[in-house]
C-alpha cells in the first residue's frame, strides 16, 4: 500500500515525536541521576556518586508504609470511582431521562474545579455531614475528583456501542442486570481500563485533597512534601525514582499483557 502522506512529512513527524519524548523524559532522567549524588542538596555537577540514598529509602519504614497506604487509597478510589462513574454514564446515556445535559455537566463539575478549592469545600462539607477525616474522607475526595473522567470515558465508549448488543443478550434470556454484567461491562472494558489507570494515577499524585482530608497516616505525596520542607535532598529523588520504576514496570507489564493476548 502506498502511503502518500508519509513520504515527505514522515521524518518531520517522527522528529517531532522524538523531540517531544526527549522533552518529557530528559528532566526525569536528570531527577534520577541526582538520586545518586553523594550530598545533602541536589545540584549539578553530581560529583561523587552513591547508592546510600537508595539503601536509606528502602529501609525507611515510613516510606514503605506511605507507599502501601497510597496504593490502597488509589485502589479503593479506583473501585468506587469506576462504579459511580459507570452508574452516572449509564444514567446519562439512558433514554427518556429528563435533563441529561444538566446531569452530565454536573457530573463533570469536579474535574474543572481547582484542587485547592475542591479540597477546602470538601473539608467544610464532610464536617457538615459529620464524616471524620482520614482514609474514608480521602477516598471520598479522590473519588469525587476521578468520577468525571470515568464518566467521560465510559460515555464515549457507550455511544459507540451497538444498541443491539444488550437487546441480543436480553433476547437470549438475560435480565437487565445480567445483560449489563455480561455484555455492557465487557464492552466498556477498554474505557474502564483507561479510566482505572487515570484514577490510580490522579489518586497517587494528589496532595492537596489528601492534606485537607487526611488523618495521621501520610500518603506518598504528603511524605514527599514534608521531606521537601526539610530541604531538597537526593533522598527525595531516590523515592521518586523508585516510584517511577515501579509504575513503569507495571505499565510495561500491562502493555505486554494486552499485546500478547491480542496476537
Amino acid at each position, binding site marked *: 500500500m502506498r502511503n*502518500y502522506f508519509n513520504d515527505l512529512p514522515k521524518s518531520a513527524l517522527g522528529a517531532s*515525536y522524538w523531540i517531544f519524548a526527549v522533552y518529557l523524559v530528559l*528532566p526525569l532522567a536528570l531527577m534520577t541521576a541526582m538520586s545518586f549524588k553523594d550530598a545533602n542538596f541536589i545540584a549539578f555537577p553530581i560529583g561523587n556518586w552513591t547508592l546510600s540514598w537508595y539503601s536509606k529509602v528502602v529501609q525507611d519504614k515510613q516510606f514503605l508504609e506511605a507507599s502501601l497506604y497510597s496504593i490502597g487509597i488509589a485502589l479503593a478510589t479506583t473501585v468506587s470511582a469506576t462504579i459511580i462513574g459507570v452508574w452516572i454514564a449509564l444514567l446519562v446515556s439512558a433514554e427518556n431521562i429528563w435533563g441529561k445535559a444538566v446531569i452530565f455537566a454536573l457530573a463533570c463539575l469536579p*474535574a474543572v474545579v*481547582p484542587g485547592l478549592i475542591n479540597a477546602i*469545600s470538601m473539608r*467544610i462539607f464532610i464536617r457538615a455531614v459529620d464524616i471524620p477525616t482520614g482514609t474514608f474522607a480521602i477516598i471520598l475526595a479522590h473519588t469525587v475528583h476521578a468520577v468525571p473522567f470515568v464518566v467521560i470515558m465510559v460515555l464515549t465508549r457507550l455511544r459507540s456501542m451497538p444498541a443491539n448488543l444488550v437487546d441480543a443478550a436480553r433476547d437470549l434470556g438475560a435480565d437487565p442486570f445480567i445483560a449489563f454484567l455480561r455484555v455492557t461491562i465487557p464492552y466498556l472494558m477498554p474505557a474502564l481500563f483507561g479510566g482505572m489507570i487515570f484514577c490510580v*494515577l490522579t489518586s497517587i499524585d494528589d496532595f492537596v485533597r489528601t492534606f485537607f482530608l487526611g488523618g495521621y497516616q501520610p500518603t506518598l505525596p504528603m511524605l514527599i512534601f514534608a521531606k*521537601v520542607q526539610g530541604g531538597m535532598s537526593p533522598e527525595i529523588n531516590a523515592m521518586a525514582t523508585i*516510584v517511577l520504576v515501579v509504575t513503569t514496570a507495571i505499565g510495561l507489564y500491562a502493555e505486554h499483557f494486552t499485546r500478547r493476548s491480542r496476537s
Partner: protein
Amino acid sequence: MLDTTTQPPSVGLSMVPHYAGWIGRTARSGLYRHTIGLLVESRRVRLAVLAGVPLVWIAMLHIGPILQMANISLLANYPPQPDKSSEYTLANYALFFSDRLYFLPFVRSLIFAAVVTISTLVIVYPVAYYVAKVVQPKNRMRALLLLLIPFWAGELIRTFSVIMLLANRGALNVLLREFGFIDRPIPMLYTFFSLSFGVIYLLALYMLLPLYSAIEKIPTPLIHAAADLGAGPLQRFRRVILPLSKDGIVSGCSLVYLTAVGVFAAPLLLGGPNAVIFPEVIATLFHGSNDKWPEGAAFSMIMLVVSLTTVGLFMRVVGGRSVRLM
C-alpha cells in the same frame, strides 16, 4: 427436532471449553431471582435504581461542596468569629471588580491559560498524529506508553525536575558551559519561558490523549483518497485531517485550558516575580495570615464561572459535540 445425526465433536474431552459460567449459575440461583432478579424486572424500580445513586452522589458530593463555597462567598465573615457579624453580603464579589489588584492577575491567568493551550496544541498535534497514523499499529501502545510514563512521576517531582534542567547550575547551563558556548549561565529558570515549559510539561497529557483518539479514528483510506484527488500535504491536513480531528482538538483544548486556569504549584515554583496568577491570589486568601475565606470563596466562584463559560463558548463556536478523553 434438530438434526442430531451430525458427527460428534472431534476435539478431545480435555479441549472442551468450559461453558456454564458463574453468571448463568448466579442468574438461576434462587437467591438472585428473589432479590435482584425481581428488582430489575420492574421498569419503575429499574429506573429508580439507575437514577437514584447517581443523582444522590451528584447532589451530595458534586454540588454540595460548591454550594457551601457559594454560601461562604456571600458571608461577611468566615470562619465564624465571636466578635464579628456573619451577615450575607455581596461585598466580596464587589471587591473583585473594584480593585485591579485582583482583576489583573485574573486576566493574566486567562491569557496565560490560552497561550499554554495553543502552544500545547501546536506541540502535541504532530506527535499525536505520528503515533496514531505513522507508527505501525503493533508498536502504537509502546510509542504512547513512552510518552505516558513521565506523567506518572507526580506533579511535584516533575516540577522539580524542570528546575534541575533549567537552573543556573542546571543540566542545560552546565552542558552549555562545558562545551564553551557560554561563559555565564543563561538565566532560564523563573522566567515566562520556564513557566510555560513547566506547565506544558505538566499538562501535555490532557492534550495528547484526546488528540490521539480522535486522529486514530480518522480512516486512513480517507487521507489517501484526498491525496489521490491531488491534495498536497498541507491541503490534506487543512481540509481533511483537521476537520475530522476537531472533536479531539475541542476536548483537548478544553481540558488543558481548564487545568491551566487552575494551575497553582507550577507558577509558584517555576515563575518569576511577575508570574502572579489568579489561583495564587485565591490560595493566598485562604492560606494567608488574615481570615479572607469569604473573599477567597467569592473569587473561586468567579473563576469557576468564567472559565466554564469560556470553555462553553469555545465548544459552541468550534462545534465539538462532546468532551472525550480517550
